[in-house]
């Protein structure tokens, strides 16, 4: 218990260092997420809109989830060497499938009645996408972004073994910072991840039209994974 008290003290005494590492951590995570979003969302949305590539789009997420983060970072070191860019690439590879699958399922799964109605009103494919499908798909897309963000922030902690900087620098360096330091940094990382989760949960709720809020159907949805089963369930 004393260790945790010391850990809080450590945070107080090393605020500047921890703040700098937090910024490094966020920079790494932010860059990776940003690029992953730019790559995955257009692709996922387009595939979902034309209802093609379902096998790949859904299973890439299974494979992606199976990729052990430490192994991926390590392979990145083997192939690309150490440093910020290489770790960022590994993080992009981890985030991409989550965002892609969610974007695909979100757009693909939009109620076809609404789409039919829109087409019936004379909307072009593009208008249907932007005016009907995307607004309805937004919550699930955001669920994917949220999951990816938390996942990347968590994994960026491991960046230290590959020459990039993050709060993990302190966690793996018990030699210098001793146990209170390690615990203090661990607490900081945990808080960081939680804040990200809460922020994106709020964002997700903000873009969800009331009618679609799943909570109201008595289904607890906390961390937005892709849909509960991988087969399309009729009830959703």
């Amino acid at each position, binding site marked *: 218990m004393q260790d945790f008290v010391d850990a809080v003290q450590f945070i107080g005494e090393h605020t500047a260092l921890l703040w700098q590492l937090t910024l490094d951590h966020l920079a790494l995570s932010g860059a990776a997420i940003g690029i992953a979003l730019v790559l995955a969302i257009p692709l996922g949305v387009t595939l979902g809109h034309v209802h093609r590539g379902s*096998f790949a789009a859904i299973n890439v997420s299974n494979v992606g989830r199976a990729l052990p983060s430490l192994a991926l970072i390590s392979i990145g*070191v083997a192939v690309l*060497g*150490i*440093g910020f860019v290489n770790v960022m690439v590994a993080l992009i590879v981890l985030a991409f499938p989550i965002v892609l699958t969610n974007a695909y399922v979100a757009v693909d799964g939009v109620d076809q009645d609404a789409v039919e109605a829109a087409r019936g009103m004379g909307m072009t494919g593009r208008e249907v996408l932007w005016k009907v499908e995307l607004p309805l798909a937004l919550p699930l897309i955001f669920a994917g972004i949220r999951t990816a963000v938390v996942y990347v922030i968590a994994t960026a902690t491991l960046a*230290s*073994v*590959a*020459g990039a900087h993050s709060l993990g*620098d302190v966690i*793996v*360096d*018990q*030699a*210098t910072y*001793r*146990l209170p330091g390690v615990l203090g940094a661990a607490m900081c990382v945990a808080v960081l991840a939680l804040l990200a989760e809460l922020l994106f949960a709020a964002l997700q709720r903000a873009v969800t039209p009331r009618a679609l809020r799943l909570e109201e159907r008595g289904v607890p949805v906390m961390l937005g994974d892709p849909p509960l089963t991988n087969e399309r369930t009729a009830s959703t």
Partner: protein
Amino acid sequence: MKQGTLRLILALVAALALTTGLAACGGGDDDGGSGSTQAAASQPGKGKPSVTLGTKNFTEQFVLGQLYKQALEAKGFTVALKQNIGSTEIADKALRSGQIDLYPEYIGIFNTAVAGDAKAYPSVDAAFGAGKAYAERHGFTLLPLTPFTDIDALAVLPKYARAHQLESVADLKGVGRFKLGAPPEFRQRETGLVGMARVYGIRDVDFSPLTIGLQYQALDDGKIDVADVFTTDGQLQGGRYVLLRDPKNVFGFQNVTPVVSTRVLQAEGPAFEDTLNAVSRVLTTEAMQRMNAAVAIDKQSPADVAQQFLQANGLV
């Protein structure tokens, strides 16, 4: 259905592959040594309580751990190996809290990092004497030193050495700011940046913390200018790197001594200590370098390498 059939095939293939792998080529038991021929002679370790041996987080420690473990097991002792615990600080903590009973430590590191004693000793025996005194006060025993010493050294690429005319650590002062890659603990150590600043006046260092083992890659890639390496590293064979001399002996003495809990040492009996000492006695610098190289360059497993060495020297 296409999705389902593909999954089925995938599952069968994967299951088949895993089963084949798990069953076939399964010659090796876990780490070698334990199933070797029964030395029908003395088994003084039989019946003694089990011991937990810990090792730190790099190649040489893995080899040392296997050497001591297999030698003890050949004499009938029961040894649980906790490999790759972490750096000195973690290993020391584990020892004090009883999670491990012994681990191999370097005498210089023991004095500075564990005993908090920053004094530079004139000889390795003096250093050992000081360390032993501290240990005994705290319930540990330091067993006799190995012949080999594995000290920190600063390595650079030959072209960097030529460009800045570097022969010794002192020459680094004239380089200006340079990037140094080392395990994180190097920053705080007397046998690290602290000593370099105090003794050689080298302060303008851009420090890059790296996991042990990554320094060579970083050096090759040009990400760092100078790397902290260990003098018995396998990677140093072949002369690809230039080691800077350390005339003022900042990096000190680093012969290995098994740090054992005194209570455990007494409980295990004199044969325990003798076995460990017998192994330590034959660990010369060359032997250690060759074993490290076998693991680091030829990618043999530490257990295999240790077993071969012990067999060649009649210790198992």
